[in-house]
């Protein structure tokens, strides 16, 4: 196994990118003043007003076609990028999870 093969391995590249991201974050953390949580600092900015968070149900019923497209688009991408040496059961498991997600979404 050559050095470049090791360096360009997806896992190694991913790890290096994560370390770079953590390094940038750590540098920013070191340069920034110490975080002080005072008063309304963590509250939502609303021009100084005090607002409580509101919850509302997501309404997928208007976007059935778009939502199914998004799910199946990702599934198709996974199928299209599967290599010849991929483990079949992992691909099948992924497709099964996608199918279950669609069933749950349309259960109501």
């Amino acid at each position, binding site marked *: 196994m050559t050095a470049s093969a090791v360096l360009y391995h997806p896992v190694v590249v991913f790890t290096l990118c994560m370390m770079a991201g953590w390094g940038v974050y750590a540098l920013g953390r070191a340069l920034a003043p110490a975080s002080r949580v005072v008063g309304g600092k963590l*509250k939502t900015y609303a021009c100084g007003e005090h607002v409580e968070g509101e919850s509302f149900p997501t309404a997928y019923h208007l976007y059935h076609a778009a939502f199914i497209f998004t799910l199946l688009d990702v599934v198709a991408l996974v199928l299209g990028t599967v290599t010849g040496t991929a483990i079949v059961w992992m691909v099948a498991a992924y497709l099964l999870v996608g199918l279950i997600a669609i069933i749950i979404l349309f259960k109501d």
Partner: protein
Amino acid sequence: MLDGLVKWARGKSPWVCHLNCGSCNGCDIEIVAALMPRFDLERFGVLLEGSPRHADVFLATGPVTRQIRDRVVRVYEQAADPKFVVAVGTCGVSGSPFYPGYNVLGGVDAAIPVDMYVPGCPARPDAISYGVLRLLATLDPKAEALVQEIEERYDTEGLVYTPEEMAQQRDQVEGARG
């Protein structure tokens, strides 16, 4: 070296947030004029931001009343450190002429700490620019050199006040009242 670099970066791009505490909008218009091409505060890297989360400097106008005080404090707390406050206009500096009112607490420093005072009714855009520049001079040596050049060429007495100078002014006024 890192501290110097950070200080240089902060001095080169101070983003401002305009905080109207109840102004008549006279000083607000002058703040906008200071940011426009004629007086051009933006050549110092100043950008007007709509959110205090993105701001380094607050340009606060208007007197602070009992109603607005909590809101001003909340907005100030929501800005990230380090942050600075410039009180613009006589109302922001002292609350005058509304100060004796039953609901008026005073200038901006009645709610939040102020780092520079720019009096005037309204404050002139060049005075606002000079006030921001003096604030930047504490961070950026080039801004400090520019401030010194301005003070040599023009009469800048009474244009802006630091908190220490403002305290001296208030002591003199209180002393004169007897």
